[in-house]
């Protein structure tokens, strides 16, 4: 076996090629000759029939039927090849800027005004937000029910095609997620992620047959309901569970809480506690003005990731202090390829439009169920 692929260290190649070393063997005795003879006979047969067609002498009915036999096996691969070709063509056509996936309109990048940040008044603002959250009265999710979150989301990213890296984005589009209370069933409909408009099932087990176990990064409702609501203990849990992830422990803790705000529906006590916990993370600031993916302006609680120069902002209604959405904005200049993400670029933005508890996957809430 000549398993040598360029652009990889020999050790790496050896290790992975070694894995497949036993997947190579000869054909069973006699089968090589059998298939070869079969192939040659078929080729001769096809050649003969082609000559007959060109000569204007159609073959008899029996022969025609015999020739039809291999068709299904032949048509399907041809179809697949055709599809593959179509995909390649699509990418080439869009080389100038956008991406043609899932029917999401694309553009060269999203930008925004960078709001002024201040470390003053952070605890006070988070306190008010926390009080508003405690009063929100989130419903309980019973076994068999689903948390439904509908959001409007967009993002900007670097795309490399043929060695050239350009800025590309998914324009704002609707994203819907359903997750069962225990987290084992779910559905995602997001044209920027899914290949089909039907979305994809998040029902598991995964590729390895493991039933998912909820954790802080993929929390189920049941998992959230079991978390402590004591801010100090909660923060300790977050640091412990996210150890080694992200650029810095503080940023990762902030991001983890942000993800819980965006696409889950925690019990009100925990929801409120999340903000009191965030107030204990060093480096959190208030941004005077930020706009969410749905165009709603508000005040933001934010934290700058020094490593990437990007600021994650949680946007709240200025008066009611209700959570509107979150976004990640490039605020510092980068170097290298990353410099394409200029300050003012919205790397990611998501506005929560609907959150509800529903009784089935794909079921959308009625007006009275929305929270």
């Amino acid at each position, binding site marked *: *076996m000549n*398993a*040598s*692929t*360029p*652009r990889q260290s020999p050790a*790496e190649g050896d290790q*992975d*090629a070694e*894995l*497949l*070393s*036993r*997947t*190579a*063997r000869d*054909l*069973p005795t006699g*089968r*090589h000759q059998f*298939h*070869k003879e079969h*192939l*040659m006979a*078929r*080729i001769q047969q096809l*050649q003969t029939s082609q000559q007959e067609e060109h000569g204007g002498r159609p073959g008899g009915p029996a022969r025609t039927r015999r020739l039809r036999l291999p068709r299904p*096996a*032949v048509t399907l*691969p*041809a179809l*697949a*090849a055709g599809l*593959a*070709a179509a*995909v*390649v063509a699509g990418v080439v056509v869009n080389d100038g800027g956008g991406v043609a996936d899932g029917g999401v309109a694309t553009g060269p990048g999203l930008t925004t005004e960078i709001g002024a940040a201040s470390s003053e008044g952070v605890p006070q603002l988070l306190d008010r937000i926390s009080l508003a959250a405690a009063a929100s009265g989130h419903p309980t999710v019973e076994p068999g029910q689903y948390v439904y979150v509908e959001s409007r989301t967009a*993002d900007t990213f670097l795309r*490399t*095609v*043929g060695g050239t890296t350009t800025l590309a984005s998914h324009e704002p589009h609707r994203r819907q997620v359903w997750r069962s209370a225990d987290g084992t069933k*779910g559905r*995602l409909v*997001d044209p920027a992620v899914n290949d089909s408009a039907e979305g994809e099932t998040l029902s598991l087990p*995964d*590729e390895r*047959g*493991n039933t998912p176990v909820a954790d*802080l*990064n*993929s929390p189920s409702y049941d998992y959230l309901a079991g978390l402590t609501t004591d801010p100090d203990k909660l923060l300790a849990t977050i640091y412990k569970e996210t150890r*080694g992830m*992200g*650029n810095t422990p503080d940023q990762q803790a902030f*991001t983890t809480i942000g*993800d819980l705000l965006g*696409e889950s529906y925690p019990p009100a006590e925990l929801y409120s506690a999340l903000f009191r916990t965030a107030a204990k993370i060093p480096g959190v600031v208030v941004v005077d003005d930020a706009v969410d993916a749905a165009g709603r302006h508000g005040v933001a609680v934010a934290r700058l990731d020094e490593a*990437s120069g990007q600021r*994650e902002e949680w946007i709240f209604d200025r008066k009611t202090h209700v959570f509107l959405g979150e976004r990640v904005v490039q605020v510092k200049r980068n170097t290298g390829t990353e410099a394409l993400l200029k300050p003012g670029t919205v790397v*990611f933005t998501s506005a929560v439009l609907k959150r509800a508890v529903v009784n089935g996957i794909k079921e959308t809430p009625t007006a009275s169920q929305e929270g």
Partner: protein
Amino acid sequence: MRTRVRAGDPSAFAELFDTYARAVYNHAFRLTADWSTAEDVMAATFMEAWRLRARVDPEGGSLRPWLLGIATNTARNQYRSNRRYRRAASAAAAAESAVPDHAEEVAARVDGGRRLAAALTALAALRRPEREVVALCLGEGLDYEAAAAALGVPVGTVASRLSRARRKLRALSAAQAAPGARPPRPAGAPAAASRKEVRGIREGARPARQTRGDHTHAIRPAQEGNR
């Protein structure tokens, strides 16, 4: 050779078959996890090659990548769903890792069966596009350009699929090497102790499963954390 293939010279196809039947057969096995299906795919591949002969580029090197590309498409039609591949792989893995009755059975053979079972388990842990790239690049040793041409995708796609697949394979072999984690654990068996071990290690590989649609992964590993 390319000219003769394009012209439909039967002796050229006889040569192609003699030279590449084994490679196509092995490649098909990696994509179907079944030796007998692999044989069918191999036979269908050469028939299909005959049908598509006019599309062969007159210029170029070995026709092996072209044949492997056709085999990939043919195998894909055999197993439309990954679920079916995983069933076949786990059945084959179980058969291969079964310890033979005879004590004098050479240890090397037993070891070979285990390693084949490990390979199938690893391949089954991948998504189909990743598995195809692994089979082409690692199994058959194609370079990125050849694999890209065989699959009809950009070179960058091959590179990214391969690196994602490598990460998954790493995580898997790390999990298997971990003490207390027995590799061929039947799906659904509780094995709570080893589950914990495996999950702890899987955490590191998590971004690999979440890459789709997760363009801000550098600082937001949980962006697509709903999966």
